[in-house]
């Protein structure tokens, strides 16, 4: 069992959120709401759960992280900046002409990125192949795939899920971020019951509040003890989590924020941080 420093993890999640807001402000728009919603999971994985660190990007024994939802790249960059892997200036270039920090993270642009995203529903298949290949070579590294709920509408996800389940890929962890929002608005095609779907495909499944750090720590801890099945951790998240303004934004999928709104967003974020995020066990 890993030692857990909960206050530190929460502080890291806060840094990730600040870095998300920073990128959003510099660009004026982007997948800001999603960046906020993913911060707790990203912080947990990169500062605690994964056998990984910024100085081991080429280490074959490192755990792998594949961001299937390339649209959430903003939180990947935010996390990397919190780890010192990106500078402030690099972070400020998010989404801008010629920037390596594109809207969907691609391999080779930013060191650490393991998967080229943007076209959805592709991460789980690559993750399954990676998990199978690592296991074949006796490599005990785990593979973490991070996907959005909308992606489960793509048939390719279930082709991969069937393979992983039938092969009992115990080294594969699939994080499904359920915010119930997609490009056209609230889910245009119902995806529930998601847990039952993955169970039917032979997966170990848990559901958790994806913005509750203590609960997240616990569920990933449990998943570590399940050796013979792929793990689906269904994280229910609030888009914009930590910023009441962004949470209430009508077009939350891709938001544009006017310059004069940022001061307010920052101030209310400070209040929210001090009070602890919604659902966060104190």
């Amino acid at each position, binding site marked *: 069992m890993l030692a857990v420093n909960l206050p530190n993890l929460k502080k890291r999640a806060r840094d990730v959120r600040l870095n998300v807001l920073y990128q959003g402000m510099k660009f*004026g728009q982007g997948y800001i709401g999603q960046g906020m919603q993913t911060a707790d999971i990203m912080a947990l994985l990169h500062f605690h759960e994964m056998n990984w660190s910024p100085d081991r990007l080429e280490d074959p024994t490192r755990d792998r992280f594949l961001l299937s939802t390339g649209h959430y790249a903003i939180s990947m960059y935010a996390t990397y900046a919190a780890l010192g892997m990106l500078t402030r200036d690099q972070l400020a270039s998010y989404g801008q002409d010629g*920037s390596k920090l594109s809207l969907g993270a691609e391999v080779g642009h930013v060191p650490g990125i393991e998967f080229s995203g943007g076209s959805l529903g592709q991460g789980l298949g690559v993750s399954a192949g990676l998990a199978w290949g690592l296991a074949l070579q006796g490599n005990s590294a785990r593979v973490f795939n991070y996907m959005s709920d909308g992606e489960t509408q793509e048939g390719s996800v279930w082709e991969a899920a069937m393979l992983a389940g039938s092969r009992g890929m115990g080294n594969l962890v699939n994080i499904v971020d359920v915010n119930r929002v997609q490009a056209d608005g609230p889910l245009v095609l119902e995806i529930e019951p998601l847990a039952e779907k993955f169970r039917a495909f032979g997966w170990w499944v848990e559901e958790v509040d994806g913005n509750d750090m203590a609960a997240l720590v616990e569920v990933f801890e449990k998943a570590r003890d399940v050796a013979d099945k792929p793990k689906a951790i269904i994280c229910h998240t609030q888009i914009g989590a930590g910023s009441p303004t962004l949470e209430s934004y009508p077009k939350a999928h891709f938001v544009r924020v006017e310059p004069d709104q940022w001061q307010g967003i920052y101030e209310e974020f400070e209040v929210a941080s001090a009070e602890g995020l919604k659902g966060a066990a104190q």
Partner: protein
Amino acid sequence: MNNAKLTKSDGDKAMEQILENISGDASAQMGMRDMAGPFGKVLIDVATVRPEVVALTADLSKYTDLFAFAEIYPDRFLNVGMAEQNLVNVACGIAQAGLVPVATTFGAFLTRRATDFIVMQAALPKANVKLIGAVPGITATFGPSHTSIDDLAIMRAIPNMVVIDPADGTELGEALSAALAYEGPVYIRQPFATHVDDAENKDRKPFQIGKNVLLREGSDIGIVAMGFMVDEALAAANELEKDGIQASVLKVSTIKPFDEDSLLALSASTKALVTAENHSVVGGLNSVVCEALAREGQQVKVRAIGVPQDCFPEFGSREYVQEQLGMMPADIAQAARDLLV
């Protein structure tokens, strides 16, 4: 409220810095709209008089100008979710039921992800489906996943498929209208609904499937252009005129079936040709032009302006990428000058 002071973190410093220097620069993203644009208006107009016309999308109604249609005709609209392969198959099933489906998503996803489904279910049985590929070429401003620089090459190679790349919003509407009047599978690129109409709106000839339009006549160089590159070709022609070089500009809107007669007439009346397209120079307009010229035994030099072979465009705005790839009017003009040396 808990007023416990948090330690000043890296993130705080980031925030302080940005609050001192806020930048509001941002471009509208991928033509998102709630109100009907040129495409949506035509679709709604046709649907009003033709109850068999229906529309479907894969979670991109707002980005493909279908939102207004969906509001007006909720019963005749189907959102299949993010599932492009299923989008194509469902559209083909709808066609088999005797309706006329218009199916939209981004061109990259439609033509790359669902190619086999298009070949087997749309092209082979000549299903009466209209497949709409939005944010074509380098206009997607997202990255390689959304950048469809190969859709024309893919769709052109598929038997029975009509392939249209409209120059502007007006022509997009006309192309949709023509496609709905045509019986069989059609692929139409959907440029930004916000894209300005072409510079030659006066005296414009209405769109016809398989007909090119000569927009400007000059005997030195012939520029064959398609999509938003038609505007760039006209700008290049103006630039060349200042140097005393007279350029013709031939607007291509249908890459298949291709209007060879207009091309052969152009090559006969000019000294060399430049092709300009919002697509890879492999498999698109340049290929169509060179294939036709070679078949007819025409000896003419042709320069290609477009996305170079073996190039994934850099990330950025359309204007930025266009400049990076040498797709500006000045680049077209320079290619013309080089040919005339």
